[in-house]
């Protein structure tokens, strides 16, 4: 794993190996997503850490087209950042649903989420 490349490539290379990694600034502890070369406060000491994969649906829509219906969600990761994603295996879920990430392998690997039982 060449972590010396730019963050987009590193992220995508990790995904291709089945791993969902996000960045964290060593000094401030800030999590960063989508992957960038500097954090919101300007830090560049970013390390790659395994995402917990746990998150909550912040907003969701179902795109309805001739090719079928697919949901597109914004998921708030437990670490803080928000990402665009999809909740698989269901048409849609209520906002606030707790979800867990997994990497969907294939030609263009991506992070998808499954609904999970609510955590306390």
């Amino acid at each position, binding site marked *: 794993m060449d972590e010396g490349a730019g963050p987009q490539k590193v992220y995508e290379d990790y995904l291709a190996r089945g791993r969902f990694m996000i960045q964290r600034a060593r000094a401030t502890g800030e999590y960063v997503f989508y992957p960038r070369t500097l954090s919101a406060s300007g830090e560049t000491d970013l390390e790659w850490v395994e995402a917990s994969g746990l998150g909550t649906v912040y*907003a969701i829509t*179902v795109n309805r087209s001739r090719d079928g219906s697919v949901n597109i969600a914004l998921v708030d990761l437990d670490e803080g950042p928000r990402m665009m994603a999809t909740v698989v295996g269901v048409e849609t879920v209520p*906002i606030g649903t707790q979800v867990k990430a997994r990497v969907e392998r294939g030609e263009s690997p991506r992070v998808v989420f499954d609904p999970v039982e609510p955590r306390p």
Partner: protein
Amino acid sequence: MSHSLRGRTAIVGLGLAGVGEAPGFSAMELLGLSVRAALDDAGLKLSDIDAVFAATSSHAFASMSVTEYLGLRPKYFDSTNIGGSSFEMHLLQASLALEAGLCDVALICYGSNQRTAGGRLVSMSEPQWHETPYRPRHPITAYALATARHMHQYGTSREMLADVAVAARQWANLNPDAFARGPLTRADVLGKRMVSDPLTAGDCCLVTDGAAACLLVRAERAKDFPKPPAYFLGAAGANWHRSIQAMPDLTVTAASESGPRAFALAGVSREDVDLLMLYDAFTINTILFLEDLGFCPKGEGGRFVQDGRIAPGGTLAVNTNGGGLSCVHPGMYGMFLIAEGVTQIRGEAGERQLKRADIALLHGNGGTLSSQVTAFLGSEAAL
């Protein structure tokens, strides 16, 4: 707060072309016709224009393309493209350039043939790599997400959204130039095809052709023109994100920042505003901007628009041309906010003319609720 730009420049020419459908014309051809109409309106010659402000959905270097097409040699030019709000930003930039003496006659213009060229929204906006794997259908995906969140957080209903579309249509029915006219009920809007939950086709703006242009000069010569001047009172922009995943709170737009700064710069209070032109690409926009610009509390926008409050005869005049929802939306709508503001201030709005139209708020929106620009125009009585 100083009001250094208040009343220092004015729009003295306005032209429209191809509003609705203009089969067989290119975007630039329509734009050229709108500039010709604006020159005729102001009694100016093409060669009087010495500054060009332009953005389109189909030209990477819009001011260069406009300059060549019109055969101009501008001293100042600017192709700032921040989506649909570009033209409200151009108002500010043109006023700054005029006030600094860098130019004397500034043209702001837009043209599109997207309806007859394909009937789909044309955009040069590039995909965002971190969103692409989920195949969002922008812009509607982003606005649908914001709508879903607003409904979840504040109890906004699809009926309330539909009321925004109904009010827009009622205004359009008073505007002979509006593209979508005829009766429209709440049930009609709710019954249209669901495109991206919770937005139906009735919650989405039109896809039309259309071009518009305006001409600005310094205020000292504004009264030398045939039509009453529409003075520029001030403007401010705010931008917090590009892609919807980076918008901090999907129920609060950067209009909540551009609005207060623009009000202060223009020396205007909410009670002074006679006309609100809010960029209504989708029904949720009107609700969000009413809230973020302070015309109702956060979360109350849906309830605020009920019972015809923003329709003809209501207490607040919003989008009197019929808006992007029912009048015109050729990809980027910001020039048409300016056009209606000028038309009302001049008293040329016919059946939809407001009794008092001295101060118009124009709120432009670009991208996915991204760039927000609030601008004010006023009549001479507003100075």
